[in-house]
């Protein structure tokens, strides 16, 4: 664990040292690392031909669950040096295929075979596959791709999905990316394949904010950190001088909301990724918790305790006066908007213990929806709108889903303490954190809606409070 952490830290310091030296930080900035690079937009390339493909959308999960997909290394027309790989574009082609392979493998829905155990197709073969090579390997699907270095240093990546049995192209995509964003092209390819085969919306090209944890249980250091959906491109945002908790990516990925004790008290900040600066969500001497964005990024929900009584408030992301949405005695906290922004699901102990409630976005019509036994905490509305994920407390703490009326409860995990679900951009996978009994060590996990496919997401150090952002713009 330690060498990885050091590597990340060292890279961070090297890359941004000159910037940091020039400025004197505000007091509230004194726990911040240097700004993270914002990353460029991914340009979509028009593909040469489109014969319409097949109308091939499998809706029965059991049919495509074991779909064999061959993913050989992406080919290159000329092996030239690139900033994206020390081995040139040929080595980068293999890395691209490896990222696609990992995406599809960990998703648990396919049986992909990666570039390390497959022959390498030549560049012309990408658009004209050598069918016998793949049918002899009993691959049902084939993902082939290419990478080319453009004159301006950017990379062009193409991705093709073929049905081996039918010997037909199903779909294709092409993207131009700066070398630093090469992995995004691979995630775009994974998304293309996943969407075409499952009929679901994409989710791999997205990022996760979370809290990186180190140190003993009674002196835990908690730092705000960000990474790609597969754990790559990891960066620490804060230095760990102050405890950081509960981040949320803005829908446009330009800002992070989170709680910090940097001024000694629990306060909510908006951290701007471009400038590396932050400001308070609201000016108040009262403690504030549980920050959330509205789906359009225009509003911020937060919870504030006055005299020990916590209520939910809404403020414009541009600042200005806050509107109080709840006023029941007790703890009303959290809140997650429905995707259309008209409703909010939140947590309240007004009935005596933690339960989930729904209200209109203006605070009207508050009603309890969870009646299925146990307690309901940290509700999060699915981006698809159909389900609410929550922490179900019934002896142990587990991640569960229910419909928006509170019915159809299904518990998806079985850890001792699984907490704080956050949805993948397409609403098909839920990420959460798991705390080990006694040691207090925490880690990030993902589970799909069947509950059958659960896996740990590797992080450089212990991890908690994950927040999955939408598909990258």
């Amino acid at each position, binding site marked *: 664990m330690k060498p990885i952490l050091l590597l990340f830290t060292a890279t961070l310091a090297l890359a941004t040292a000159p910037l940091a030296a020039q400025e004197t930080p505000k007091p509230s900035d004194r726990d911040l690392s240097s700004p993270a690079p914002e990353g460029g937009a991914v340009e979509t390339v028009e593909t040469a031909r489109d014969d319409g493909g097949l109308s091939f959308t499998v809706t029965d999960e059991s049919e495509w669950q074991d779909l064999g997909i061959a993913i050989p290394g992406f080919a290159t027309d000329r092996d030239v040096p690139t900033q994206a790989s020390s081995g040139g574009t040929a080595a980068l082609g293999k890395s691209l295929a490896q990222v696609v392979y990992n995406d599809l493998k960990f998703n648990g829905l396919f049986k992909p075979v990666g570039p390390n155990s497959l022959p390498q197709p030549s560049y012309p073969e990408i658009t004209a596959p050598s069918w016998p090579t793949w049918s002899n390997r009993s691959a049902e699907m084939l993902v082939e791709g290419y990478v080319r270095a453009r004159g301006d240093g950017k990379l062009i990546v193409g991705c093709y999905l073929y049905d081996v049995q039918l010997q037909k192209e199903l779909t294709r995509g092409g993207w131009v990316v700066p070398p630093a964003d090469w992995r995004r092209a691979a995630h775009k390819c994974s998304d293309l394949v996943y969407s075409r085969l499952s009929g679901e919306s994409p989710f791999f090209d997205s990022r996760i904010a979370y809290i990186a944890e180190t140190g003993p249980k009674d002196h835990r250091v908690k730092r705000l950190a960000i990474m790609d959906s597969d754990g790559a491109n990891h960066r620490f945002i804060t230095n760990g001088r102050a405890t950081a908790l509960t981040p949320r990516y803005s829908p446009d990925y330009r800002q992070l909301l989170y709680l910090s004790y940097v001024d000694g008290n629990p306060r909510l900040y908006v951290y701007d990724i471009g400038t590396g600066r932050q400001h308070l969500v609201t000016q108040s001497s009262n403690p504030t918790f549980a920050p959330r964005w509205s789906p359009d990024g225009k509003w911020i929900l937060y919870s504030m*305790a006055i005299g020990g009584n916590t209520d939910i408030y809404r403020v414009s992301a541009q600042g200005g006066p806050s509107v109080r949405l709840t006023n029941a005695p007790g703890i009303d906290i959290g809140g997650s908007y429905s995707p259309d922004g008209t409703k909010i699901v939140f947590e309240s102990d007004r009935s005596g*213990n933690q339960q989930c409630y729904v209200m209109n976005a203006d605070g009207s019509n508050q009603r309890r929806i969870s009646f299925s036994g146990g307690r309901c*905490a940290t509700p999060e509305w699915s981006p698809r709108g159909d389900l609410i994920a929550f922490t179900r407390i019934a002896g142990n703490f587990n991640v569960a889903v229910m419909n928006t009326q509170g019915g159809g409860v299904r518990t998806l995990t079985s850890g001792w*303490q699984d907490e704080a679900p956050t949805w993948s951009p397409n609403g098909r996978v839920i990420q959460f954190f798991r705390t080990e009994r006694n040691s207090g060590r925490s880690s990030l996990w993902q589970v799909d809606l069947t509950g059958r496919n659960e896996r740990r997401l590797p992080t450089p150090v212990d991890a908690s409070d994950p927040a999955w952002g939408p598909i990258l713009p």
Partner: protein
Amino acid sequence: MDRRIVIATLMAGTALLAACKKEPPASLPPEPEPNVTATPTPTAPTGPVLGTQAHFEEAVNGKNVIYFDTDRYNIDSASAAALQTQAQYLMRYPNINVRVEGNTDERGTREYNLALGERRANAAKNYLVSLGVAANRITTISYGKERPVALGSNESAWAQNRRDVTVVVE
């Protein structure tokens, strides 16, 4: 003086009895020496200095910490006795301000626990104010489940972590 000693002893007894009822933390402070509470000696050359946390803790005989049942924030009789001791100290030294730090055990979700810790800290503050301590001398803060003192994952550890700690603002 004598009457105070009696009161202090009685309060300590009540505190221990009440605490036993709700399975107290294993590391509750030892039974007080009666005359410590009643006769603080701030000018003693080797003792803690007035205005420090050490002076406060010695004067209240470790009763700067109170404990709560699971998910509760009410001041029970043991807590009331401890807060009375704290209030006596604060009435005696009107220039001393304190911060009440609310904490929870690990068996709760993070954000709810932050709010619960704040509610516990305010319960202690309100009790101190009801005993005559000026409200503007007491601030509150919640650390939720972020600052455990007992590290196990069992009832005994959780009971020790569900606590308010009163701290002198130096």
